[in-house]
C-alpha cells in the first residue's frame, strides 16, 4: 500500500487507569486462573517490568520535550537527514510519515517482520499441548498465552505496515523462507514440562531482548513493544509457576521438569544471536537507537537473572561451569553451540519444515473464511449503494 503515509500507528493509550490495570494484572499474574496454585515471585522480573514502565514514562516525557533545533524549513535532502539525526539524537521518536534513511526503513522492516513471524510461529510448540493440558486452569492459562502471541504478531505486522509494506507481502516472505523467525521455535515440545520451560526460559529470554526495544527510536515499534512486554511478564511467570509446581511434585514430575530445562537451556541462550564479534547488523542499529545493548550483554543479563531463579525452582541449569563471579558480579557460563544456531537458522533444525508446513496449511485452510468475509462485505456495500 502507498502507506508509508499512514497517519497512525500503534499507540499506547494515555490513560493512567489503563496502565494501572495492566500493572496490577502483571503483578498478580494468572489472575484468570481458578486458584489453588501457589504464586511465586520471580526474582528480577519485577525489575524488568518497571523498566517497561520507565520506558513508557520516558516516551511521554520525550514527547513533551522540544527537539534540539527548531527544525524550521526542512526541505532539502541534507536538512532532512540532519533533522532525522537530531530527532534520534534527542531520544525522540521517528514517526511513520517522517523522512528516514532508506537503510533505516529497510532494517526496521526486516527486524519487525522477523519479530512478528516469531510470535506467530511461536504459537505452534505450545499449541501442541493445548488439548492435553493437565487441568482446566492450566489449559485456560496456556490458551490465553497462545492468544497473546497471536496478538503480538498482529501488533508487529501493523507496526511493519506503517513502513510501507503489506502484511500479505510479509506472510509470503515467511512462507517462502525469504524472512526468518527465531530459531528457538524449531525445537519440539516433547512433554508438558516443556510448556513451563518455554514460558520461563524462552519468554524470559524474549523479555530481556525486548525490554530495551521499548526505547527504540521508531515510535510504532517502541509502542508495540511496550504493549507486548507488559503481556510477556505473565508468560514468564506462568512458566515459572508450572515448573515450580512440577519440581515439588512426584519424582517423575521433577525429572520431567529437569529434562525440559536441560533441553531448552542452550537453545534459549542462542536466542540472543551470535557473539558480538560475529554480529553483522549491530553497529548501525545502535547508532540509530534501534538496538541498545549487544547480544553478549543481553545474554549475560539473562544468565544473571535465570541462575538465581533456578535456585528458587530447585532445578539445575545444565552447565557445570556455571558459577557466580564475585568481583564482576556476574555469573560465568558456557556459551551455546553457535554452529548449531547457524544450522537451525539455515533450515536444519528438528522442526523447521514442520513449522512452515503447518503455517502454510493453517493459512490455506483459513482462505475460505477470509474469502467469505470479503464477499459478504462486498455484497453489503453493493446493497448499500443500491439502496
Amino acid at each position: 500500500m502507498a502507506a508509508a503515509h499512514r497517519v497512525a500507528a500503534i499507540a499506547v493509550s494515555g490513560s493512567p487507569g489503563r496502565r494501572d490495570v495492566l500493572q496490577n494484572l502483571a503483578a498478580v499474574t494468572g489472575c484468570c486462573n481458578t486458584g489453588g496454585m501457589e504464586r511465586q515471585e520471580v526474582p528480577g522480573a519485577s525489575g524488568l517490568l518497571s523498566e517497561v514502565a520507565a520506558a513508557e514514562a520516558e516516551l511521554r516525557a520525550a514527547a513533551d520535550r522540544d527537539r534540539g533545533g527548531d527544525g524550521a524549513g526542512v526541505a532539502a535532502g541534507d536538512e532532512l537527514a540532519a533533522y532525522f539525526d537530531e530527532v534520534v539524537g534527542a531520544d525522540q521518536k521517528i514517526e511513520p510519515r517522517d523522512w528516514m534513511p532508506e537503510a533505516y526503513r529497510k532494517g526496521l522492516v526486516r527486524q519487525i517482520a522477523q519479530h512478528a513471524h516469531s510470535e506467530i510461529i511461536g504459537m505452534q510448540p505450545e499449541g501442541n499441548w493445548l488439548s492435553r493440558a493437565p487441568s482446566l486452569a492450566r489449559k485456560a492459562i496456556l490458551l490465553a498465552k497462545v492468544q497473546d502471541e497471536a496478538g503480538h504478531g498482529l501488533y508487529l505486522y501493523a507496526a511493519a505496515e506503517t513502513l510501507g509494506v503489506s502484511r500479505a507481502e510479509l506472510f509470503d516472505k515467511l512462507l517462502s523462507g525469504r524472512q526468518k523467525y527465531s530459531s528457538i521455535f524449531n525445537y519440539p515440545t516433547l512433554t508438558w514440562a516443556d510448556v513451563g520451560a518455554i514460558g520461563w526460559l524462552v519468554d524470559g529470554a524474549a523479555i530481556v531482548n525486548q525490554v530495551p526495544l521499548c526505547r527504540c527510536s521508531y515510535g510504532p515499534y517502541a509502542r508495540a513493544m511496550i504493549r507486548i512486554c507488559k503481556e510477556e511478564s505473565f508468560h514468564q511467570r506462568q512458566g515459572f509457576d508450572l515448573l515450580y509446581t512440577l519440581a515439588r511434585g512426584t519424582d517423575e514430575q521433577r525429572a520431567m521438569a529437569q529434562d525440559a530445562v536441560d533441553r531448552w537451556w542452550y537453545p534459549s541462550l542462542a536466542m540472543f544471536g551470535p557473539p558480538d564479534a560475529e554480529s553483522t547488523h549491530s553497529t548501525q542499529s545502535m547508532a540509530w537507537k534501534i538496538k541498545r545493548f549487544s547480544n553478549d550483554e543481553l545474554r549475560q543479563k539473562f544468565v544473571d537473572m535465570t541462575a538465581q531463579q533456578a535456585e528458587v525452582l530447585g532445578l539445575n541449569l545444565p552447565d557445570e561451569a556455571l558459577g557466580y563471579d564475585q568481583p564482576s558480579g556476574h555469573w560465568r557460563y558456557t556459551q551455546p553451540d553457535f554452529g548449531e544456531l547457524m544450522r537451525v537458522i539455515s533450515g536444519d533444525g528438528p522442526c523447521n519444515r514442520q513449522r512452515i508446513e503447518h503455517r502454510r496449511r493453517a493459512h490455506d485452510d483459513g482462505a475460505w473464511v477470509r474469502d467469505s468475509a470479503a464477499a459478504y462485505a462486498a455484497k453489503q456495500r453493493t446493497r448499500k449503494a443500491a439502496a
Partner: protein
Amino acid sequence: MTVENGQSTVDSQDWPLWEVFVRPRRGLAHSHVGSLHASDAELAVRNARDLYTRRQEGVSIWVVPAAAITASSPDEKDAFFEPAGDKVYRHPTFYPVPEGVEHL
C-alpha cells in the same frame, strides 16, 4: 494493495486497514491504540475487541477506515502550526499578577 480507497476486492489479502480507538474508562476520551485488517466495520470491531482489549483495557471501541483519515503533512508541520507560535498572550501565564491579588 488497494486500501487507499477503502475498497477491498474479493481477494482477502486486500482487506482494508482500520484504525482502532479505545475508551479505557467512562469519562475518558477514546484514544488511538493501533490498527488491524478486517473485511468490514462489524468484523473490525470484533477483531479490535480480541486484539486490543484482552485484559479489560476498554469500555468502548471505535474503528475508522484508515483510508478515511486525512492528516496534516509532517513536512509542512512548522509552517502549518506556526500561526500559534507568536501568540503567547493566549496563555494566562503571559500576564503578570501584582502581589496580593487573589482569585485571579
